[in-house]
């Protein structure tokens, strides 16, 4: 028979363990960020400099936008594989229009294209009852084809420098404008998810679609809005990327972007099954991916090794933070 003392000990230990497990999902990205900072700074003191951090910000803004786009889709329990392809196409469209018609039309048409793709993705999924994984897989391929048809293999150089200059300029506190713009957008999206009715509807659909429907949520409408939001944000990211680089290339949104965005979303703590997480978490996730990539660059790690490392980190992240009570059987 266990003595009273050991029962007491084990109860306290158990309580701490339970608290840790439950909050791990929130702390994990922060812990990893801290660990990465320490690790890479030890290897190369230049890592933790302000200059490098600004660098990282600049390099990861686009990834943040794309990841934010994907976050809402994952929140409602679906997935959007076409984000990279939308980004590429939008960049190309913007490139074509900006040279002749200027910035505003380029932005408008490119973003509208993204929103339209989102509308098509969402509607096809709902009307034809095709799972989002497959619809967006198909759209990804279609859009890549269209982009290649337009470009014929070559890149489109942006002759209008205004946007490029704006994006790369540093107006506030030496922070590149693209970072400022992206963080502003992130802030708006955080407000959207946590403080608006639409945001709550996203969470409700992801948490329990049947319940949401019977509670008066217009599920179809909200899902399509989520896809349109994702498309619009990805397109915007495409325009900004083209502006940042100064040219729109048909391989801008290559497969790495999609994978990195999903890695960032998951790393941040948004559950793949939906209903939990959100844009505030995605920011942390992107930070992890960005620190990891930049850290490995700065310590001159082979790019193939980098891919291996990234993959391992993703698996570890999901394994440590997945709520196993929710999935009785992992598939």
């Amino acid at each position, binding site marked *: 028979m266990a003595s009273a003392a050991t029962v007491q000990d084990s109860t306290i230990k158990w*309580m701490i363990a339970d608290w840790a497990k439950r909050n791990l999902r929130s702390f994990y990205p922060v812990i990893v960020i801290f660990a990465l900072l320490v690790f890479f700074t030890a290897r190369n003191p230049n890592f933790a400099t302000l200059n490098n951090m600004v660098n990282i910000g600049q390099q990861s803004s686009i990834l943040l936008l794309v990841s934010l786009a994907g976050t809402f889709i994952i929140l409602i329990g679906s997935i959007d594989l076409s984000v990279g392809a939308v980004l590429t196409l939008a960049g190309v469209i913007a490139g074509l229009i900006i040279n002749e018609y200027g910035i505003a039309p380029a932005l408008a048409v490119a973003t509208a294209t993204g929103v339209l793709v989102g509308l098509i993705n969402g509607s096809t999924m709902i009307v034809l009852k095709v799972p989002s994984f497959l619809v967006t897989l198909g759209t990804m391929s279609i859009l890549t084809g269209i982009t290649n048809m337009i470009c014929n293999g070559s890149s489109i150089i942006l002759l209008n420098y205004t946007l490029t200059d704006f994006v790369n300029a540093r107006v506030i506190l030496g922070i590149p404008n693209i970072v400022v713009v992206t963080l502003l957008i992130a802030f708006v999206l955080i407000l959207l998810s946590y403080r608006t009715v639409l945001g*709550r509807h996203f969470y*409700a659909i992801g948490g*329990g679609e049947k*319940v949401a429907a*019977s509670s008066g949520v217009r599920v179809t409408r909200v899902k399509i809005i989520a896809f349109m939001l994702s498309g619009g944000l990805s397109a915007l990211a495409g325009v900004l990327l083209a502006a940042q680089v100064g040219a729109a290339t048909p391989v801008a949104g290559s497969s790495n972007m999609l994978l990195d965005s999903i890695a960032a979303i998951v790393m941040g703590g948004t559950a793949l099954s939906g209903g939990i997480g959100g844009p505030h978490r995605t920011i942390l996730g992107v930070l992890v991916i960005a620190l990891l990539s930049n850290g490995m660059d700065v310590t001159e790690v082979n790019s193939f090794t980098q891919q291996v490392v990234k993959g391992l980190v993703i698996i570890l992240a999901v394994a440590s933070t997945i709520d196993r009570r929710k999935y009785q059987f992992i598939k």
Partner: protein
Amino acid sequence: MDRVVPALELIDVHKRFGPVTALRSVNLVLEKHSVLGLVGENGAGKSTLISVVNGTVRPTLGTVRVNGRELNAGHPTEAGYMGIATVFQEQGLVANLPVYENILLGREGKFANAGFLSVGEMVKVAREVLSELEIEIDPLARTGDLPFGKRQLVEIAKAFALGRIYPVQPIIMLDEPTSALSESETQLLFALIRRWRGKATIIFVSHHLSDVFEVCDQVVALKDGAVTGQWDIEKATPEILHEAIVGRKRSEAYYKESEQRENPGDIVLSARGLERPGEFMDISLDVRSGEILGIAGVMGSGKAALAHALAGSIRPVKGVITVNGRAVALGSPNAALRAGIGFVPAERNDSGLIGMHSVEWNLTLPNLRAYCAGNLPFLSSAAQAEVANKWLRKLRVKATGRKALMSSLSGGNAQKIVFAKWLERDISLFVLEDPCRGLDVGAKEEIYSLLRQLAKDGVAIVLVSDNLSELIGLSNRIITLKSGRITAEFGTPSGSKPEETTIIASMV
């Protein structure tokens, strides 16, 4: 002296999960060929006890002996070899496999020759098991295509099949087997149990005390993980059991009949000519403010479909529904909600609440726009907090607070939140589908009180339930459905409630 070895013995079994003690000092002896009833509230330890017996869970302390042999805990497969089978409330069948596969699930090894399955042999054995139990189901049918009641019978056949495959007399644990069975299917189950007790030993876990009295030899009550009593069935009464389960004496009138409101107000909902092919037809009814209208019928009579139609979840092809004089668009949950109809569905965890979200989020979901400050579409946390705390207090919900996860609430408390969800929206009519399913005695009483209070406040209630005594006890009037049509209407005023047999006559 020749001592008969008991089928099952639990000796001083304790089970702790972290700081929670699920079972304490449980001592139980189950003789061969007897039927033991196991009763207790949700959370009393019934499921843990089942898990300990069927080997899924290892007891922290204590021993389990099956037919004299010690059970090697933590190995449900081994428990299977010893003849222990469990039939769960939430089905343990694979829908896309044929019936014979499900009956022999996990035991295919016995029918394999060098790795190749002898399907013919499997079908033959399955057929034999089914016919011995007098269950008429085609072993080749796809399990998912069978109606719920038939699937339950396949599960029971699966349990009995163990006696066929292994040289053991099965010990079969039935967990809430009758909760979702119709009256005729329940009688069939009882007949099976009586026929088979000569070849098996049975543990019958149930909330339905009437079932326990009908078919068990002994009954054991669990409360907070400990055994509070064990009686021969002749010596037990519902009052004694109720007290052992809940810890307090059963209140005078279980269904609070004395609180039944006998003067309903104006008509709230009016349905005319509702029809849905294959489900119901020619349904016309009125429900008044403050009235509880019960709808009775066997499974397949169309009562579930009718409930869903009134709540807007499914769409009748013909007919009209008016609420407070205004016609309501059919088949639209939103239209029903706007008209003031709230729906508490049977599948609580599936369609009633979102387990991974907080109490507050669940409560505020149907009415989010109301918590937006002014014209801006921003939700006010203060407004939401106020509403959440109000209902937690008013309905006396046991939870750690408004931020508690829904999944952490017990069945009864979760059900109260489901009600509160709608109450916040000024509902004039509730459609309830088996609102007390799976709830323990104490929680049921609280829901019954809630319903009486709602009726007093003028809310109209349509109650669909398989529990006939509950239906009779709670309702002002009962409509019976048979094969989709209304066959009779009965007044059920408090003080002169009809017998169950009267109502059943119009159902079958």
